[in-house]
């Protein structure tokens, strides 16, 4: 059987079951509020959000692969494009674009035009250091790690902090070679 052709983010989003974004947004808000109460320190909340995103990423990647029919990407450039064009669209219904490539093609930015996590949100003075959407960076990091790419994902711009867009920098640290773990000394 020939492998099925990769599907576009739009086509997938149109075919999957969807829910009102407000349920999603308000539930995420409830999570952030719980963390702020439990952990008190904004820096700890940033860390925990990233960790929760990572936990989601390592699970969500399989759904992404199953629904998108994406096969192994040839390089990191293609990977970044697929995350932006297919990944964000199929899960969150929003489009993202890839820019700011460095010379050796291992670091780029993903810019979000729209971000369903932040509807209704304004950071109070007590939370100015909060990366409210930090869960997203964790999701990308977790998902890529499951397909052998170690990355570092950081926020460059954040509308809630006064910038004009949401920009995530994704930096490829190490591509774990695809060998069987017999020689692995980890």
């Amino acid at each position, binding site marked *: *059987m020939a492998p099925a052709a990769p599907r576009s983010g739009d086509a997938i989003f149109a075919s999957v079951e969807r829910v009102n974004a407000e349920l999603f947004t308000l539930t995420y808000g409830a999570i952030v509020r719980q963390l702020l109460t439990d952990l008190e320190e904004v820096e700890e909340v940033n860390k925990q959000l990233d960790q929760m995103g990572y936990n989601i990423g*390592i*699970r*969500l*990647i*399989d*759904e992404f*692969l*199953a*629904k998108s029919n994406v*096969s*192994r990407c040839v390089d990191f450039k293609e990977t970044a494009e697929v995350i932006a064009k297919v990944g964000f669209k199929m899960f969150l219904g929003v489009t993202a674009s890839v820019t700011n490539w460095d010379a050796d093609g291992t670091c780029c930015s993903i810019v979000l035009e729209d971000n369903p996590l932040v509807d209704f949100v304004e950071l109070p003075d007590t939370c100015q250091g909060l990366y409210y959407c930090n869960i997203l960076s964790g999701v990308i990091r977790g998902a890529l790690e*499951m*397909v052998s790419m170690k990355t570092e994902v950081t926020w460059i711009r954040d509308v809630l902090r006064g910038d004009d867009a949401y920009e995530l920098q994704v930096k490829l640290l190490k591509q774990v070679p695809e060998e*069987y*773990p*017999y020689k692995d000394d980890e």
Partner: protein
Amino acid sequence: MAAIYSLYIINKSGGLIFYKDYGSKGRMDTNDSLRVASLWHSMHAISQQLSPTTGCSGIELLEADTFDLHCFQSLTGTKFFVVCEPGTQHMEALLKVIYELYTDYVLKNPFYEMEMPIRCELFDVNLTQAIQKDRVVLLGR
């Protein structure tokens, strides 16, 4: 029931996380099924090394006198394989369906711990439906 004898799911380290047999043939006790899983994990890896061309992703189909074994490995390293009557159709499509059920009813379940044996009632229920003979025939369309 399609002529499927058994279904295995192996995690990326070669541990058996799900096993189910359907009917009388090829029924195995727990120890044997664990052994088959880890053997298959190794054979699958060896087949990639043996391949004369690069980029081989391992054995997809093993045909024997008395059974076929179809294997699907996700890019994340989880392997799904069915053992069935020789010549049974639509097994690649069935494995894809099972992969999707796994992403729904296993990975979205907060009580499932990654890489551990799968004990999710909803996964079992939906799997039983998917494997019905008439459903499998529809996959050919």
